[in-house]
Every structure is written in structure tokens, then in C-alpha cells.
């Protein structure tokens, strides 16, 4: 597989074209919008968190295939998890994306499709925008707009 095919794996293209949990959440308890000022990409994450566990999630993303796919995949992985588990997931994904080589840890699920981004250092920030939004959102009960 070429570098490009590695980068734009079917999983990523599919989530970009048909994002899961896209939209807004009427009863969100947590919310964050994070943008990348260098490229103008924006991801908004909304969560309903009850008793420390995520019950519902939605995202809105304006940006490249990588940033939208990362957001979409993440939303499929967080419902039912507690905040500590989400932080662990985000950290594991960041470590993976910033790494050089090697297989993805099993608990990354579909996020393993981002293996190819390790060969495109200038695109790492695209993959990490959504986890950043998720991280900011779970840390804040109120609406918060921030720049990366």
C-alpha cells in the first residue's frame, strides 16, 4: 500500500463521507469547540455526561478528511465510558499518532486506521484536533471556545 493509501484508508474515507454522530445534542452537559488557527479546521464536541459516564455524544466538524474522520470514530467509542477511560483513550491515540512505527494498541479500535499519518508529520495536528476537543469538553461543564 502506498503512503497515500495508508493515510486515506477506507475506514477514514468512509467516516469522512458518512460521519457518525454528526450534528448537535440538545441535552448536552459538556461542550467544546477547538480550532486549528493554522488551517481553519474546527471541531465541536458535545457530550451528555451522567454520573461520570458519557451517555450521548455528537460532533460538528469543518475540515479535512483526517480531522472529520477522527472526530467521527471517536464518537463511536466514548458512549458508556467514564471520563478516566476517555482521557486514557485520547492519550493513547496521541502517543500512537506521534509515534514512528509499530502496530496500534488493540484498544484504539478503528483509530488504528490513523497509522499512516505517522508518515505525514504536518498532518498530525489534523488527527489530533478531535481528541483535543473531547479532552477540553470533558474538563469543562460550561461552553468553552478555545484555540489549540
Amino acid at each position, binding site marked *: 500500500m502506498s*503512503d*497515500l*493509501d495508508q493515510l486515506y484508508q477506507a475506514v477514514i474515507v468512509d467516516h469522512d463521507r458518512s460521519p457518525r454522530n454528526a450534528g448537535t445534542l440538545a441535552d448536552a452537559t459538556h461542550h467544546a469547540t477547538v480550532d486549528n488557527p493554522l*488551517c*481553519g*479546521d474546527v471541531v465541536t464536541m458535545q457530550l451528555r455526561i451522567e454520573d461520570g459516564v458519557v451517555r450521548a455524544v455528537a460532533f460538528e466538524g*469543518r475540515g*479535512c*478528511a483526517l480531522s472529520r474522520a477522527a472526530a467521527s470514530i471517536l464518537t463511536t467509542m466514548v458512549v458508556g465510558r467514564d471520563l478516566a477511560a476517555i482521557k486514557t483513550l485520547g492519550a493513547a491515540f496521541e502517543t500512537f499518532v506521534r509515534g514512528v512505527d509499530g502496530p496500534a494498541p488493540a484498544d484504539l479500535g478503528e483509530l488504528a486506521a490513523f497509522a499512516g499519518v505517522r508518515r505525514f508529520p504536518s*498532518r498530525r495536528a489534523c488527527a489530533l484536533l478531535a481528541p483535543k476537543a473531547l479532552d477540553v469538553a470533558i474538563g469543562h461543564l460550561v461552553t468553552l471556545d478555545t484555540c489549540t
Partner: protein
Amino acid sequence: MPSDPAAWRRDFPALDVRVHGHRLAYLDSASTSLKPTAVIEAVVRVFTHAAGNVHRGVHALSEAATEAFDHARATIAAFIGGAIDEVVLTHGTTEAINLVAHSWGRAHVGAGDAVIVSALEHHSNLVPWQVLCADRGATLRIAPVDDRGRIELAGLTALLDGRVKLVAVSHLSNVVGTIAPIAELARLAHAVGAVLLVDGAQAIAHLPIDVAALGCDFYAFSGHKLFAPTGTGVLWGRRELLAAMPPWQTGGEMVGSVHHDAARYREPPHRFEAGTPDIAGVIGLGAAIGWLANLDRTAIEAHEARLHRRLRDTLAAIEGVRIVGDPEAAVVAFTVDHAHPHDVATIVDREGVAIRSGHHCAEPLHRRFGIAASARASLALYNTDEDIDALAAALSRVRQVLR
């Protein structure tokens, strides 16, 4: 006098680099131009034969550096039709504009006054005026841009009144590639007593610049888009304006006599050049202009105009590609249906084609056109038909990859 693009290309060693196994098609000169051997050698020569500081020592190395540095300033002045003492050396266009905003702006823009910029400006010709206006209690007025990407003269005229102290516009847009009618804008600004600052960052490498004929009051540009090293820039200002302006940054080089409680400032341009300058960079800029002067400028303009038409026509013929505005020179920004500009740029890069993606530091302009980002191909004299064909072929890969 070489008038053959193949001969011009041979002067650029960076063009020989293989990118991902492909011939390099460098279509990002609007970000920064490549550097000819003449410039690279001039910079090396500073460190091997003229390694002293300028305007400070009496020893041989300092004298050699000073002579080359002063010669570069004279070369720059002649290139734009200005006087030597009207050429302030900065670290780039951004610093040149900030210099005017801080020095001229704080002296002339007060509460209730206004500054006008156009809706197509690069952030570096927008944010300094936002900050100045906020600081002085002045108003920033935005001159509208039409669907072709041109500044609407009627709209701008409607914003002009006695409260406007300065109008700041880009000569050649870094996104939509439109050329502003500077001489006419100068007349309009002067009619209400305002001064005109021109951001020439893009124009300097593509349009003949004669500041006297343009009639503007300040002209700012960067060396690195004119085949010179990064870290150099120029603020040309009308002599009487510069002479009345207070210093911006202070320190060595810009002062006459200094006492513990006060200092006298030197005359322009030195008043605005505190500290040791980018000596090698400035000498490199002089070398770039000297190199350019040896080429057939008419042939360059004809070559670039033909390439620009071809670039436009090629992109317009590709299904799903939409050109932003109606570009006149040097750059063509575009979007590709169902593909984000970053993905487009990454995919064509793997075919050896270098283009820019994002908002190109002109976010409000993209908003004006209802898009968040665009891809941008930009030209320089070393580009050829082959580069444009490579872009077209690489763009056909986009749909395959994002299947």
C-alpha cells in the same frame, strides 16, 4: 540577456530536488520563492569574506560588510524607484506594516479617526490596524470586494471622509490574484487627506514597481518572495513622512548621541533600524535584485502571463474544480468538490507537486467567498507548462485516493 525559462531554471538548485521520487513542480512561490545560485553564493560570501558587523568597525571585515550592505540598500532603492534614505530595512512585510502602525499610526491616528483596509487583506495588513484602532479609539472600516475578488472602488469611496487617516491595501492579492488600482486609490485617499500604504508582498516579484508612479505613501514588501533569503523586508516611505515619524524599536544603530537621561535619534532610514540587521539577508536581497536585473524582464512578464492563463484554463477544465474569484496574475486559488484543500495538497505533494492549502492568512476573504479554506497554486519565472500539467495529473489522483 537570458530570455529563456530553461536558462532561468538552471539558476535554481532547489528545482533539482526529487520529491517522493518525482520531478518537483514548485507551485508555492507566493509562500516563498526559491533562491537562485547568485543569492546563495552572495550569502555564503558574506560569511566567508565580509563577516564583520556593519556601520560599527573600522577593520577590514566590517568595512567589507558595510560596503556590501549599503550597496544592497542602493540597489533596492533603484529597483522600486525610491531614494536610498527612503528605504527602511525590516525583517519582512509584516514588520514593515507594524512599523507604520506603531510609529506613523500612533502619531496620526486618534480617537474618532478611521483607517480603511480592504476585505481581501492578508492578516498582516489587517491585524496591525485592528490593534492600532482599538488602542487609539479609532474605527477600522472594511472596503468591500466583489465576486471577482476586486476591491469595489465605489464601496471604498463611500467609506472615505475627513476622519480617514490611512488606507491600506494589497497591491496583488495573495489569494484571488487581483491587482488593485494603486494610482487611483492614492488619488482617492489623498483627496481626503489620508495616506496610502501598499502591501506589495506578492506584487514585488511580478509587477514592475515604481513608487513615484504609483503615488502611494508607504510600500512594504518581503525579500523572501523576491528570490532573497527569509528574514528581510523593506518599508519604502515618502521622505517627509519618515522624517516626521518617531522611532518604533529603540537601541543601538538608530541613535545619534546618547546620555543617561536622553538620546537623539538618527535621520531615516537608520532611525527605524535598531540593532544589528540581517546583514547577509539584506546583501542577499541586493544580489537577488541584481540577478533579476540581468534577465529580460519583458520576457519574464510574458512568460508569467502565459503560464497564468494556462494555469487558470487547466484548472477550470477539471471537473469539480472551482476557481476562487477571477485571478489576474501570479496565483490561482481553487477548491475541489468533496475534497478538503489539505487532503488535496497532501495528495498532490506525493506526486511532487507543491501547492499551498488553508486560508493563506486571509481568513476574512475566504469567509467573503463562503469557504473555509482553499488550495492555491502560485507561479514564478522558473515555472513551466510541465509544472501545470503535473498539477492537473496529480489532481486526478485526488478522486482515486478519496474514493
